């Protein structure tokens, strides 16, 4: 079965410093991987996606993620955090054959002024 593990439930950073959110995946085939962001009481917004093209994926709002097959990881980074980045982030993997998704437990990001 396909699954993801988000290694940090909570990450706190200072404004202007880098952000790193860690995600490991488990899949018996080459998966599609995604990062979503959710601000309080809002729906989920797609940040970026990996679908077997370039391993370094650039997304919206300055985020990017690198697919590393040897490490089964898909970590999300941003060089400089902004206050508006405070939100919950979900790492997501596609499930085989049925177009459903498996979600990680989420990482809450706090940005300190």
């Amino acid at each position: 079965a396909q699954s993801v593990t988000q290694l940090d439930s909570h990450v706190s950073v200072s404004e202007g410093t880098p952000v790193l959110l860690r995600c490991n995946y488990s899949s018996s085939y080459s998966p599609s991987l995604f990062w979503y962001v959710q601000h309080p009481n809002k729906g989920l917004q797609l940040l970026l996606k990996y679908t077997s093209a370039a391993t370094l994926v650039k997304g919206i709002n300055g985020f990017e993620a690198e697919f590393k097959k040897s490490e089964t990881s898909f970590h999300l980074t941003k060089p400089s955090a902004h206050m508006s980045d405070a939100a919950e982030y979900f790492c997501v993997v596609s499930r085989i054959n049925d177009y459903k998704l498996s979600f990680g437990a989420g990482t809450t990001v706090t940005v300190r002024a």
Partner: protein
Amino acid sequence: SQTIHQWPATLVQPVGSPLSLECTVEGTSNPNLYWYRQAAGRGLQLLFYSVGIGQISSEVPQNLSASRPQDRQFILSSKKLLLSDSGFYLCAWSDGQRYEQYFGPGTRLTVT
């Protein structure tokens, strides 16, 4: 471009009352449609999944049901709400040929 709508945005209902949440998608045809529930402090739980009109797959047995009366309309219902039905309900759609899903703004349901 595609747009997904959900209503109502918030809802407070007593235990035992019925429920109807509606989701509509604009700008695409024959989308896959999904209902998720997000309980406080927990991840997303897929409730129902539909690949076409009248075709509903249930992921977990529960007090809820779903219907798809039109191509771009997805309805979540209950005959009698339980306290445990409280949560944030999200509708999503995807293109049948792609994996990424696009989410609506959600409905906050509080059962009292």
